[in-house]
């Protein structure tokens, strides 16, 4: 078992290293980079949906707030990239610490509704508070950062940064899943009342998951800002939250590979469709309905059940 797990990790890293060698076009490499950033976002949301069993429809907050913070601090305030990134990460995580207190007053669909409302409030601020955010025009960065002497302005170095971040995220979330805390979190998802009777503080376990999710979402947010060198209210919009949710549900909530796979599939569909027709929202809506009706458990658990069934 352990051998197979390490083989899996080796394959993932090998694939990530091979991608820039195989894909020489910086356009296609850019799409892959974008998919991997959204994979980090989907992984962060998966902590809530898959492990804690709480569906959030406001996860774009943790993409958008750090992205805006980086853009604003580096352009309006004239800060260096390192300081901007650190403050943006702290701000994104602190927002999750605050919103977590509010959203965890409820559970189930109440939780979903509060996260959605909080997300829409943030979108409204980004859209309407023109003096701070530039409104619909957003904020444009000059270029990608030079960090600790490394120049990430090119497509390949930036891909390397994103791929490294993804591997670190995957590793940390894998360790979290295997840890006693991960077991507690799954316990609060499946049997909250029993967990309470066993003496666990269910609220605190969920709250920690909310902040963890906000932290990794912020990582995706910082990368997202540098990827486009631009941020607009789009990053905070409900469709953005919904896309992240769809990635998790499509790939399979509660697995590590699922959100990554979901992010890649959705990004590919979006890129391909956008180049032909301008009807992405209809397709996004249709994909939602089809996924929920036909494969509610997602691809990875579905394939796993299929393979397991054949072996047995």
């Amino acid at each position: 078992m352990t051998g197979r797990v390490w083989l899996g990790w080796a394959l993932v890293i090998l694939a990530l290293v091979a991608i820039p060698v195989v894909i020489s076009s910086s356009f296609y490499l850019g799409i892959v980079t974008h998919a991997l950033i959204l994979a980090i976002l989907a992984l962060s949301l998966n902590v809530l949906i898959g492990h804690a069993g709480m569906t959030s429809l406001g996860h774009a907050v943790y993409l958008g707030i750090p992205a805006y913070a980086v853009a604003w601090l580096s352009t309006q305030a004239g800060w260096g990239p390192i300081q901007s990134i650190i403050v943006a990460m702290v701000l994104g995580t602190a927002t999750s610490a605050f919103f977590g207190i509010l959203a965890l007053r409820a559970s189930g669909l109440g939780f979903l509704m509060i996260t959605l409302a909080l997300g829409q409030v943030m979108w409204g601020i980004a859209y309407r508070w023109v003096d701070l955010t530039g409104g619909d025009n957003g904020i444009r960065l000059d270029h990608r950062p030079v960090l600790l002497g490394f120049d990430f302005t090119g497509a390949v170095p930036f891909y390397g940064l994103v791929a490294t971040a993804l591997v670190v995220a995957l590793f940390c979330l894998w360790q979290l899943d295997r840890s006693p805390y991960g077991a507690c979190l799954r316990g609060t998802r499946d049997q909250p009342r029993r967990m309470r009777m066993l003496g666990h503080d269910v609220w605190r376990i969920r709250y920690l998951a909310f902040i963890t999710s906000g932290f990794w979402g912020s990582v995706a947010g910082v990368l997202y800002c540098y990827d486009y060198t631009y941020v607009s209210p789009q990053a905070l919009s409900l469709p953005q939250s919904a896309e992240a949710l769809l990635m998790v549900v499509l790939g399979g909530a509660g697995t590590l590979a699922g959100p990554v796979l979901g992010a890649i599939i959705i990004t590919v569909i979006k890129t391909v469709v956008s180049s032909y027709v301008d009807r992405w929202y209809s397709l996004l809506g249709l994909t939602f309905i089809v996924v929920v009706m036909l494969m509610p458990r997602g691809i990875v658990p579905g394939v796993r059940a299929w393979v397991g069934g054949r072996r047995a």
Partner: protein
Amino acid sequence: MQFWIVQSLNSLAMGGLLFLLSAGFSLIFGLLRIPNLAHGALFMLGAYLGATLLGLQVNFWLAALLAGVGVGLLGVVLEAGLLRRLAGNEQGQVLVTLGVAFIIADLCLMTWGGDPMPLPAPRALRPPVFIAGFAFPGYRLAVLGVALVGALLLWLLLERTRLGAMIRAGVDDRLMARSVGIRVSLLFSAVFFLGAALAGFGGVIGGPILSAYPGLDADMLPLALVVVILGGVGSLPGALVGSFIIGAIYNFGSALFPDFAYVLLFLPMVIVLVVKPTGLFGRVLR
């Protein structure tokens, strides 16, 4: 002085509109136990249908009723065609309503284009009304009146009719209602029709104030959410009180601090969540 009086009336008119939007949202949530995330899109669809009907020289009130019925029927299709197949999978149902919201919004954009379409108010209501020397916009008074009449009719329906008693039974305890012989699935369709029709009707009524534009759905949905979080799920008085509170905050916020109107919306929600998470009039649903 004129500013405060006019803004107060505008707040009341906005509150009335929000009631038309959120009463249905709250009832659907109360009975089906799911927030219908397509509600903002249904409101917007109503506004666009109204704009088209008014363009065909249909009488304003008739256009509002027709748009309401049309959107209501779409709600029935959504409930019976999609949501019923996902009975028991509440998360799936919510995601489907969200998917439908995106499709409706995109089809509206495709059909009616990206430019805002203002809806003309009925001619008789355009001149200002003078009360005690102050000029009031006539149409906003009418909106408030329509919303209050709507609230009264809804209250009569829920409290004084057999259907209303069944809906209340379903909201209070779905299993028990089913076991005493109420066909809850039929109620689902009825309530979905009613809720969607109210949203579509509200879209036309709100048209002369808000006009129909892409993004109206995304503007209205959070307002409905905040009203229902504030007032309590499934409660008609909660929706009414919540609508007028949010209408006032949104309207005065937009007039006095345009940049922060959205932040102000967030405050009553935070206070209610901290003090009474079930909302002002809410109870724990079984």
